[in-house]
């Protein structure tokens, strides 16, 4: 450990404008170069996996969406699908289309929020002002559909809770036209910007051989040239009937991940347009389930996966014959990225690149420690 002889230790700590949540990174600096980094989490632990065991299945669906704060919908979807697998419920085709639509809308909203965070971390304060406002228009649509802006509590085991309002699909279609024009503007000011290219190319390169061994998921994996996505490999809901591509890049640095996310925005808009055309008129929204103290889960277990905007999110759920869930285990994309990958990437990089790398890997602290 001779490298650490003359270093200064600072905390890129929980109270900092440059981190993506409530976590801290302990850095050992020699001048402005980082010699060692250690990640500290645990500031947001609530004990979800224990709280769920005290509640019945119907009561637990309301707490699950708070596991990951920027992206509540993949959690609700996983919970609903796990319970449907265990209890043997079938949902109608209209409900499947609506749930797919909600997942893709939420993916667009989260990618706009990412863009604001990534540009803000290098000092380009113009882009958060634009992109958070554009995301707000999507939250208005969510408010009309589900009744809440951020925590929707909408995907219920057996279907969805409310029907589509009148004129909703036209409003969504107008919003997608507006977004296609905005992506051209973001290309001009952010993705083609010479300052962003000079800062981001060659920083935070992920080694391609380790990706599958350590299970890095999401855009971190796709920017290294590996073409895998849960929506194509293990299709769920309506994804096997929709037509879309998986964008990849070859370099594996911050700029490549940004380009992969921009292409995913374009693919999401394409999927949503197909859903608007194919949405069936009639169908049951919600299958009736019994009173909440009588809805029992069989003594069985299941494992489900969903592609969220940051990677593959998976749930393991086991019941034991009573109305309560026996065990629910959540595996999100951020734990491995924060501990294994970030500590390795920050060695021999600059202090000013810490915020940019954290934003680019998509680390979300509420999901690391539930």
């Amino acid at each position, binding site marked *: 450990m001779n490298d650490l002889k003359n270093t200064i230790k600072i905390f890129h700590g929980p109270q900092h404008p440059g981190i993506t949540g409530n976590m801290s990174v302990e850095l050992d600096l020699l001048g402005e170069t980082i010699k060692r980094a250690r990640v500290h989490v645990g500031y947001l632990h609530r004990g979800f996996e224990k709280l769920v065991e005290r509640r019945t299945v119907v*009561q637990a669906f309301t*707490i699950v969406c708070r596991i990951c704060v920027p992206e509540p919908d993949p959690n609700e979807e996983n919970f609903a699908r796990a319970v449907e697998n265990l209890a043997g419920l079938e949902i109608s085709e209209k409900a499947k289309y609506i749930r797919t639509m909600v997942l893709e809308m939420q993916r667009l909203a989260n990618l706009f929020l990412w863009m604001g965070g990534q540009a803000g971390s290098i000092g380009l304060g113009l882009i958060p002002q634009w992109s958070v406002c554009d995301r707000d228009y999507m939250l208005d649509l969510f408010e009309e559909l589900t*009744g809440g802006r951020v*925590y929707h509590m909408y995907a219920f085991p057996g279907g969805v809770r*409310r029907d589509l309002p009148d004129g909703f699909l036209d409003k969504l279609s107008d919003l997608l036209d507006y977004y296609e024009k905005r992506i051209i503007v973001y290309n*001009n*000011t*952010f993705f*083609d*910007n010479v300052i962003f290219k000079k800062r981001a190319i060659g920083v935070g390169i992920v080694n391609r051989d380790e990706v599958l061994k350590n299970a890095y998921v999401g855009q971190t994996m796709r920017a290294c040239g590996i073409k895998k996505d849960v929506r194509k490999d293990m299709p769920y809901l309506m994804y096997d009937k929709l037509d879309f591509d998986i964008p990849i890049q070859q370099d594996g640095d911050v700029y490549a991940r940004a380009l992969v996310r921009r292409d995913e925005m374009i693919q999401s808009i394409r999927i949503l347009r197909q859903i608007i055309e194919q949405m069936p008129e009639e169908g049951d929204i919600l299958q009736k389930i019994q009173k909440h103290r009588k809805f029992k889960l069989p003594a069985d277990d299941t494992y489900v996966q969903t592609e969220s905007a940051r990677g593959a999110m998976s749930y393991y759920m086991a019941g034991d014959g009573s109305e309560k869930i026996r065990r629910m285990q959540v595996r999100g994309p951020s734990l491995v990225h924060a501990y294994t990958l970030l500590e390795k990437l920050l060695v021999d990089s600059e202090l000013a690149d810490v915020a940019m790398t954290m934003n680019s890997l998509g680390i979300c602290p509420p999901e690391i420690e539930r």
Partner: protein
Amino acid sequence: MAIDIKGVLSPLSAIGTLFEHPRTLTYPEVTKDILVGYRGFHINNLETCIGCASCEEVCMNDAIDMIHPDKEYNPKNTSGCIPRIDYGRCCWCSLCTDVCPPSSLKLDNICIHADCDPDNFLYMPKNIKNIGEDVS
């Protein structure tokens, strides 16, 4: 060494937004209509509430208490109690409105309240029949 001409000049197109209309909602002067269907504060039609306490039984945060009112509103109310909600526990999931048998408990679309004393957050729902009406 090649200079990236496109990278230097294309961000300058942002200057064109100087002439656009601003998108800010200046909140206290201009209010955006919160849609009917938004999950806001509770309302309860006391003429039809039967005091069955299904809402208290399904709420997993223990946010609903059944209390005795000052006079009788519905002769069919067998237990004689009506619900009161603690907004220090409620999470606005609306499970209580889904299980209400006579559908008397609903969620209104107003949702804004700020106070300086954290002890003042026990709420008695308004006694109106439908969302959007007002007693006064």
